[in-house]
């Protein structure tokens, strides 16, 4: 488990979990710091990522651009899971406007998200 200033990271059953801290305003600087922590934590391995963005309250376009490019390094697939209506919409906006080839989706149920990641974590 790694507890950073902006996110908590841990690995469980070959899946990397990222949980953003509460009340987080996501800027490019924040995104860069999260990426640095993630790459160091992964120790050169590629992972399928389960991301809980519930703590994010807003994100600027530079941060989203960065996450969609540099932020996908050493990631096989990403599943977003959040119960918050605000974060569901923020994540949908991100996926709609920054569509990449990386398999990604937003899920209402944790179990569906994990199933999606399992199919991409081999």
């Amino acid at each position: 488990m790694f507890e950073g200033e902006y996110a908590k990271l841990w690995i469980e059953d070959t899946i990397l979990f990222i949980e953003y801290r509460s009340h987080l305003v996501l800027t490019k600087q924040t995104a860069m710091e999260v990426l640095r922590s993630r790459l160091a934590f992964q120790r050169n391995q590629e992972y399928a990522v389960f991301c809980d963005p519930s703590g994010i309250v807003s994100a600027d376009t530079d941060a989203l651009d960065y996450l969609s490019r540099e932020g996908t390094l050493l990631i096989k697939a990403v599943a977003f899971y959040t119960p918050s209506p605000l974060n569901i919409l923020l994540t949908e906006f991100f996926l709609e406007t920054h569509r990449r080839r990386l398999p990604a989706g937003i899920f209402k149920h944790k179990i569906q998200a994990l199933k999606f990641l399992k199919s991409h974590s081999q």
Partner: protein
Amino acid sequence: MEREFTKANLQGVYRMLFELAKGNLAFKIERSSHHDELEGLIALLNMTAEKLHKNRNQFLWFNRQNGIVVIKTLSFLLNQECEVVHYCCEIESFENSTRSDDILDKPFVNLLTTKSRAAWKKKILEPLKQEQTFTILPLNYKSYDHLNLNLHSVITRIPYPDAVIYIVTSCLLDIKKDDVFNFRENTTMNKLSHWDQQLFHEIEEYIIDHLQEPLKPVYELASLFNTNEHKIKTGFKEIFGVTPFQYHREQRIELSKILIANTDLSLKDIARKMGFTSYPQFSQHFKNYTEMSPRDFKKRIQKS
């Protein structure tokens, strides 16, 4: 608790839509601490406006066939107590939403949002007190109820023997109908239609999505995007400053730099991951772009 979609709750959304329709993209709706559907809608509108604003600014300089790019300013003269002594406004949306009685002789910070007030105090006033003369910072002005106007600003500190005054200049890039110069006759003037802007944006997205493989030749890109080779070669370079191939290579190198700096992967592995056919090829491109070899870059990172 979920808020209802009532007229009162949607005031900011309506005002934002009016301003977007008028082409005012620098506004943002004030955010709250709610996590409900309405807050999601507000966040989405803000992000959409920010994205449109960024895209428009990127292409503003290319669409000068009917208009000229102007910098509209909002300037304030502040006394030592940072109260507004005088101000000039060229930005209509700010002028329409603020009365001069609420500005003159009042503290300047009253015009800013809570977040910007904190930044003003922390990043501007304190460094300025340490004799810094110019400070650049985006300032968020309160505009219509529920809306904020985010403007790039320069704060100048002018010291006198017995007092200090401040000049705050905030600016907004805009386009104005050309009625002074006849740009239409100037055939060398760059022209990029909205279709062209969309096209080059899509080509850029395509390149980013295919960094791990060799980029298709220009004739294949032209066929893929239903355009011609000449347009891709000249248009892409005009916007991004480099050819599609150089852009592809530079983006690969940028990602490689992140992997070198933050992982223990060998340089050969990084070269392979980034789609280079061999380490010498990677090293050569890296050196051309950064003026140092990947090994030297790694050494420098390790030292720092």
